């Protein structure tokens, strides 16, 4: 890592009068930094794992042989009841659709929010340049609050169901996409924008015509990636009692023995969906970004 970690030193200028000594000196320092860094990293990792292992109920080595215990329990029961499986798949399909809807709506809303926030928070594009730090902090905050926190609070107010999940994920998506969007927008070519300014276009027109066509492929690609993440997230939020297939999974999982066929059915649905969306969005993104 030495070579990459510390490139040309920004601080001390090498002594040009004797390049050889300068280089050897630099090399010494680089090696030292690199060594320190390596030792630090290895030390942190080792002590971290030891600490975590110490504070765990079961140790790593004792647990390792048990790794298959739970899956085999689930699978063997599901196998015994395999006749139920097709019926279960049909039974949980509506929940799956709900989960996908939650993800899609929240991605859509989040992306719309992110478009606005990112444009407002990007240097050179912002409507109110002085408010940039404000919008940035706003995005940071949106991003920092875990979905589950917002969902738990909203469930208290709105009751269970998909809406708390949608809001929670949308808020987080706004923050996460907002940051990525604004990074893309920051690299956008400002010449078209300037051209549009010179004809007297309003801010909205400048963004619509000058910025969005440039950044759209990258933005859509990020949004697709996010959609995939959000399908997962909405499944997880089911665990805390928002609707969708995650909720069914939680119920079946908590019940345990006796409903493992449901667990497997739900899991299959979820897994296939996630992999499918993953592949599709991969394709679409490759085409958007490379094919443009």
């Amino acid at each position, binding site marked *: 890592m030495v070579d990459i970690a510390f490139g040309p030193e920004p601080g001390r200028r090498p002594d040009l009068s004797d390049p050889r000594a300068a280089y050897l000196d630099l090399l010494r320092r680089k090696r030292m930094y690199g060594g320190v860094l390596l030792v630090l990293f290895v030390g942190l990792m080792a002590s971290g794992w030891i600490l975590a292992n110490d504070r765990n109920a079961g140790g790593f080595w004792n647990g390792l042989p048990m790794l298959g215990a739970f899956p085999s329990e689930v699978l063997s029961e599901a196998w015994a009841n395999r006749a139920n499986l097709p019926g279960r798949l049909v039974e949980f399909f509506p929940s799956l659709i709900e989960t996908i809807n939650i993800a899609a709506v929240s991605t859509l809303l989040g992306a719309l929010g992110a478009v606005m926030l990112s444009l407002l928070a990007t240097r050179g594009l912002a409507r109110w340049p002085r408010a940039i730090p404000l919008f940035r902090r706003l995005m940071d905050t949106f991003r920092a609050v875990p979905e589950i926190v917002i969902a738990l609070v909203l469930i208290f107010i709105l009751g269970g169901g998909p809406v708390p999940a949608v809001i929670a994920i949308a808020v987080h998506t706004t923050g996460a996409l907002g940051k990525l969007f604004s990074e893309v927008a920051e690299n956008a070519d400002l*010449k*078209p924008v300037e051209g549009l*300014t*010179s004809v*007297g*276009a*309003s801010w909205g*027109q400048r963004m619509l015509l000058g910025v969005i*066509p*440039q950044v759209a492929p990258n933005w859509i690609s990020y949004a697709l990636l996010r959609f995939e993440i959000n399908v997962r997230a909405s499944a997880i939020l089911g665990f805390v009692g928002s609707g969708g297939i995650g909720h069914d999974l939680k119920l079946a999982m908590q019940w345990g023995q006796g409903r493992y066929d449901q667990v497997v059915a739900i899991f299959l649905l979820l897994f296939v969906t996630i992999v499918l969306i993953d592949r599709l969005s991969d394709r679409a993104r490759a085409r958007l970004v490379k094919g443009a």
Partner: protein
Amino acid sequence: MLEVKAVTRMFGAKAAVDSVSFTIDHPGFVGIIGRSGAGKSTFLRMMNRLIDATSGEIRVDGRNVLALRGAEARAWQSQCAMIFQQFNLVPRMDVASNVLHGILNRRSTLQTMFNLWPRADILRALDILDRLGIAEQAPKRAEALSGGQQQRVAIARALMQDPRIILADEPIASLDPMNAQVVMDTLKRINTEDGRMVIANLHTLDTARRYCDRVIGMRDGRIVFDGTPDQLSTGVARDIYGADETFNEAATSTAIPADTTADRTYADIMLS
């Protein structure tokens, strides 16, 4: 009709444009020359209100355009077209749309969003492109065009604005000599045929001599020369460019060389 009074623009402690004043009373072809960093671009950009002036006034028909704010400033921009060295088109949109952008100021954002251009406007854009000899490029994306063609699209956009004044910031600096000539000829034609005032920043003396009715020389933000092209002697040029005895005018020349045979042959071989 155009009166510039002590216009100044500071960047930090440095005056990029330093108390510039001049008056233009008929729609001629005005060239601004001066070496890099003289403040030419800054001046044009202030005039188009792309940046704000630090002090001073620019009066057009008696109205100080530097004092306009918000929608009024944008309305002024729509009357005062600007052409850039790098064309500043929207590269991913088609040529016709780029030309139509000239009338954005007269359309709302919502209209823009839904692409609601009246048929009459589209036809006018095509007419303008036709006039500039690039009508058949209309459906192509702007980025697919050559530099010279792109600059002509930019001029078409300017014409679409139906402006009183066209500002051109080194319109031919990124073009090869052949295209440069086409673009300058086009600007000149607009100037004489339509009677629109053209103010162009130029890098090179010979272009200024060839096309301008009036030449303003800038150095370090100040006007150091203001006169007709004939008055532009080598001595004056040395003053403007701050060069010493070794000054060689050819250094700034972008004229098309007479003999291009070698180039052509090479091209032929490469393409064969």
